[in-house]
């Protein structure tokens, strides 16, 4: 009995382990090419050609960048708190990667006689899990900035942390309105509901607007990139970092963007749903592949949006940022919640 249980567990364990490895490597790979895309999009918007020297069309540029970072001298300031100084970038990276556990990357595939769900964990609190991991993302920044023992780093870290906390509130409130409609916290269930009816963006346009602004703020992207405002804080919370530890911080931002895009696509844009296509007419594996491609297309669009905004809109001032978060977005999110509640009540006929 015990050995049977163990054997069953082992197969599941291996399956999940492979899935985790694939998803993490895919996230890293996509984030790697997002850095390249960022430079290409910047070049496009500024009417120049961008990096085109390394490989065809400059396609190997990210590897050259990575190699450059890796080869740089590793400097740890001797006034800093060494253990926390090293811990900071790792926490930033871990928190960035942890979210991908609950995102349904596609429906199931059938392989080697097994049905494999393309989601690491379908927990019934998926949305809250995302929220929990987002709230942990502050630590990498805060610890790194403090352990550097540099006043600019500390100021940047405090800015970043207060920004993240402020925008988490509006984010949570905009999600509550969504959850009132879905009635479930499981990401998979939310996607399946959207496959059967319309995408949530049609029901929650205002909620999505608030949510995407908050995602921009949580990712520390322009126009909310105050933690690394280089003309005020030199370089931001990672000023004292060099070599791959700096690389981890910079890279974590791109992973955040990728995962943030995935969450937005899943919650509001149907996840792996393909519009105007009945997936049940396709065979399971084909449907899964089409679904993954559809999710990736949505993610790529959001990544492009991130870059588009970055190279279009200038940075906010710090008081403007706080006013926007606390005095505009939170009341707006509360109003959205009220409106959603009233509409649900009206639809159910009081």
């Amino acid at each position, binding site marked *: 009995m015990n050995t049977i249980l163990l054997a069953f567990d082992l197969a599941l364990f291996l399956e999940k382990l492979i899935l985790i490895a694939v998803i993490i490597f895919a996230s890293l790979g996509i984030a790697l090419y997002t850095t390249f895309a960022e430079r290409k999009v910047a070049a496009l918007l500024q009417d120049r050609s961008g990096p085109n020297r390394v490989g065809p069309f400059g396609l190997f540029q990210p590897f050259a960048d990575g190699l450059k970072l890796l080869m740089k001298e590793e400097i740890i300031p001797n006034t800093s708190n060494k253990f926390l100084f090293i811990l900071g970038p790792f926490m930033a990276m871990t928190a960035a990667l942890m979210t991908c556990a609950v995102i349904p990357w596609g429906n199931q595939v059938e392989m080697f006689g097994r049905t494999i769900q393309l989601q690491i964990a379908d927990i019934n609190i998926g949305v809250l899990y995302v929220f929990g991991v987002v*709230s942990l993302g502050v630590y990498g920044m805060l610890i790194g900035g403090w352990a550097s023992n540099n006043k600019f780093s500390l100021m940047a870290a*405090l800015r970043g*942390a207060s920004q993240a906390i402020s925008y988490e509130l509006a984010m949570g409130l905009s999600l509550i309105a969504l959850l009132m409609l879905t009635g479930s916290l499981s990401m998979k269930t939310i996607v399946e509901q959207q496959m059967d009816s319309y995408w949530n963006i049609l029901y929650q346009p205002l909620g999505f607007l608030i949510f995407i602004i908050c995602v921009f703020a949580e990712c520390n992207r322009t126009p909310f990139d105050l933690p690394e405002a280089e003309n005020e804080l030199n370089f931001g919370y990672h000023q004292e970092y060099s070599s791959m530890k700096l690389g981890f911080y910079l890279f974590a931002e791109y992973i955040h963007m990728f995962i943030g895009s995935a969450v937005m696509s899943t919650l509001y844009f149907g996840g792996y749903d393909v519009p105007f296509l009945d997936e049940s007419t396709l065979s399971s594996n084909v449907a899964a592949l089409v679904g993954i491609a559809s999710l990736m297309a949505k993610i790529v669009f959001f990544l492009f949006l991130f870059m588009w905004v970055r190279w279009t809109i200038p940075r906010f001032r710090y008081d403007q940022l706080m006013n926007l978060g606390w005095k505009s977005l939170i009341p707006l999110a509360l109003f959205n919640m009220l409106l959603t509640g009233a509409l649900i009540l009206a639809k159910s006929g009081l």
Partner: protein
Amino acid sequence: MSITEILFWFLSALALVGALMVVLSRNPVHSVLWLVATFFAISGHYILMNAQFLAIVNIIVYAGAIMVLFLFVIMLMNLNSEAEPRKSWMMQLAGVLAGGCFMMVLVSLVRQTAELGGKTALVKEGNIGLIKQLGMKLFSEYTVPFEISSVLFLSAMVGAVVIGKKD
């Protein structure tokens, strides 16, 4: 040992070591980080008991929000191990005595509780900690205490705003 048991012992050890290190660390920032680790261990226990909602709320509220505020205060006041004042031996003795008494009260309380005697924790079953059950209970059986606590939160929020405005 099954995986659940291994996890239980690991998490218990982590919780105890973390809690001890909170008290023993000289550097306040280290204390806060150990406390965060302790919260994670406790959340792990909740998950073992199939109380996923409690686990994640514990992380969001305590590890994600309250501990960040602690870190804020410690970083802004620039507390570190050098700034820690040395207490006299009298103070230390008083602290040990008070802490020991409190621990004795707690331990004897747990030992004497009839409801806990001879019971084992439900592991991987029971659905009281799932969000659906919790919501149903809160909005049916415990509606009045729930609403009253929301009033309490509101008054705390008003109080925070009033204190924040006073400068």
